[in-house]
């Protein structure tokens, strides 16, 4: 089957990775989290008068723990996607291969 879309996506990812490697190697960019920046901007706009109305219930004690939890989140998601796509694929192959053996590996698969 055609893998055109895969190649396009791969190309996009490679361009993305290449520009990142190039820029991070040639500059001292920090690559901090965009989600953490508004707090500082709000301080500037309000002249430091705005105090957050709540604090997180629990915070990961270190960057290591935080990345552990983010990795866990991604792993759970990836596991679920892989499981069900595999389940569907196997089910479909079974269906097409049961009646006749000729159909077991149709070209469109």
């Amino acid at each position: 089957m055609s893998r055109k879309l895969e190649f396009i996506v791969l190309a996009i990812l490679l361009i993305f990775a290449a520009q990142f490697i190039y820029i991070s190697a040639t500059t001292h960019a920090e690559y901090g989290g965009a989600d953490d920046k508004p707090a500082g901007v709000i301080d500037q706009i309000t002249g430091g008068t705005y105090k957050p109305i709540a604090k997180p219930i629990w915070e990961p004690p270190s960057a290591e723990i935080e990345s552990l939890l983010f990795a866990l989140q991604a792993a759970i998601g990836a596991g679920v996607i892989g499981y069900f796509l595999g389940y569907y694929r196997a089910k479909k192959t079974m269906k097409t291969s049961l009646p006749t053996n000729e159909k077991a590996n149709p070209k469109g698969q």
Partner: protein
Amino acid sequence: MHIMEGLLPARWCLIWFAVSIPVVLYGIYKMNRLVKEKREILPLLAVAGAFIFVLSSLKLPSLVTQSCSHPTGTGIAAIFFGPAITAVLSIIVLIFQALFLAHGGFTTLGANVFSMGIVGPLVSYLIYKAGVKARINFYFVVFLAATFGDWATYIVTSTQLALAFPAGGVLTYGAFLSSFSTFAAIFAFTQVPIAIIEGAVSALLFKYVVEVKSDILVEMKVLEDSVVRKLRGLSA
């Protein structure tokens, strides 16, 4: 796109909750009905939710502002199930991140659901429907839907922050615009390359779902049978 815990004044927290809660409730109702009618969609629902889980955990570096931000992953769910159900899937992820990662927060949950779970998916959904009608290349439509849904999410976040914190403290159009451009510089610009990645990966997942389970998509009226046959034939 996550507005951190406590970063919105109480008034704005309430406003965004008031807007978001009805949509989430409607989404829960719709989801229950759908699952009851068609039990076989459950795995697809899990895949769409899991995709949000994966993508929203990936903080990607952006060359535009040289900071890191994450995709939303809501495009697929929006295309399959519509914005209301996507709001339910998003709130699950947002609660997970608020609870375990101190990322986002409970006071700002309403605002974050509104941007990531409602407006972004709505934009994706509308672009998808329009693109399918216009008979543009199918995977390109999915790419556009996911990419613009992602951008829309971050534009909404910038808008929410600018509304709560207009320059000079008084909410006028000019003050809003001035604040908006500051917040948009953080979020919207950073998001340009990241949204493109999100669009590309979403198109890929869509392709795989079409390959293995197109019948259910036809049944849910996401795709027409003729389109599936064409995609199968071409398998771009």
